[in-house]
């Protein structure tokens, strides 16, 4: 038989949790279910409902702390999401490589040396992300997501700096074939390397089974 006073108290508690940023229905409904489990248990030990409610609320903790704990989980991609992300990245790399390969295949104005360099850059772009995904065992297992983000972010900054140098000092004064080769080595291949690094580090960290619980 539901107790209207208890329902009112729980409703107010829900409002406090929502105000603190705990989301509804997940995980707030589950926390309410836990709260009611705890209240039932406390009442069987002899506490009245009001006392049991106060004790249960104290045990479950402050909304802000709960939100922080759930946020830690929310930042991590699920297995399914990560697999989807990998498939998306590898599909993009592969399709892009085929498109550029067609472009290279039709260029008659490029010297054979330029073509070779162009193909080498394209293969680098295509192969490194696949190596990152499939060869994750050769990457170090870095548990801290923050450290992995810093490493990958630093790679991104280095590439951005390299692009600035390319635009200002290298790209000018070349014919179209030369520019294409430079673009492939300067823009495309480093992105492939960065993607390979990111995919390798992330996959290595995820394949390692013992996780540190976010406590």
């Amino acid at each position: 038989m539901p107790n209207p006073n208890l329902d009112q108290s729980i409703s107010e508690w829900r409002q406090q949790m929502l105000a603190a940023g705990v989301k509804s229905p997940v995980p707030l409904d589950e926390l309410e279910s836990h709260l009611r489990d705890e209240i039932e248990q406390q009442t069987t030990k002899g506490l009245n409902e009001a006392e049991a409610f106060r004790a249960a609320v104290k045990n479950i903790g402050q909304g802000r702390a709960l939100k922080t704990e759930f946020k830690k989980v929310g930042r991590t991609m699920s297995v399914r999401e990560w697999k989807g992300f990998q498939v998306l990245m590898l599909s993009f790399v592969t399709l892009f490589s085929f498109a550029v390969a067609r472009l290279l295949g039709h260029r008659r104005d490029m010297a054979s040396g330029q073509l070779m360099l162009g193909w080498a850059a394209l293969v680098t772009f295509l192969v490194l992300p696949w190596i990152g995904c499939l060869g994750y065992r050769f990457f170090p297992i870095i548990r801290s997501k923050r450290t992995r983000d810093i490493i990958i972010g630093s790679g991104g900054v280095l590439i951005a700096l390299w692009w600035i140098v390319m635009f200002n000092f290298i790209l000018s004064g070349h014919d179209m074939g030369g520019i294409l080769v430079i673009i492939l080595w300067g823009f495309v291949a480093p992105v492939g390397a960065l993607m390979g690094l990111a995919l390798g580090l992330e996959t290595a960290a995820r394949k390692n089974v013992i996780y540190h619980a976010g406590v």
Partner: protein
Amino acid sequence: MLTKELVAASTEPMILSILSEGESYGYALIQEVKRLSGDKIEWTDGMLYPVLHRMEAEGWIEARWGKSETGRKRKYYSLKQEGKKALKIQREQWAAVSGVFKQLWKEKYA
């Protein structure tokens, strides 16, 4: 009381082990670990649910909304195939650690 690091490392294998016996829910998991540890391990509610949600996201466990004995809605968790595999690996690792301590401390507690 256990250190934060030890709680962090042992929470997931404990949840996997309890769920390998059958489905359960948050409150019961906390009570079960408290009982088995002789009140030495008391998980906080705020810690347990994020861990359960992460394990669900990892594909180790799955959740369903069911009914409690009194008819209230309650979320039950059960082990998935991937969770069984994870438990097998974690059991081997914890057994290795435990085996070392057993030998090292054998004389002390004999």
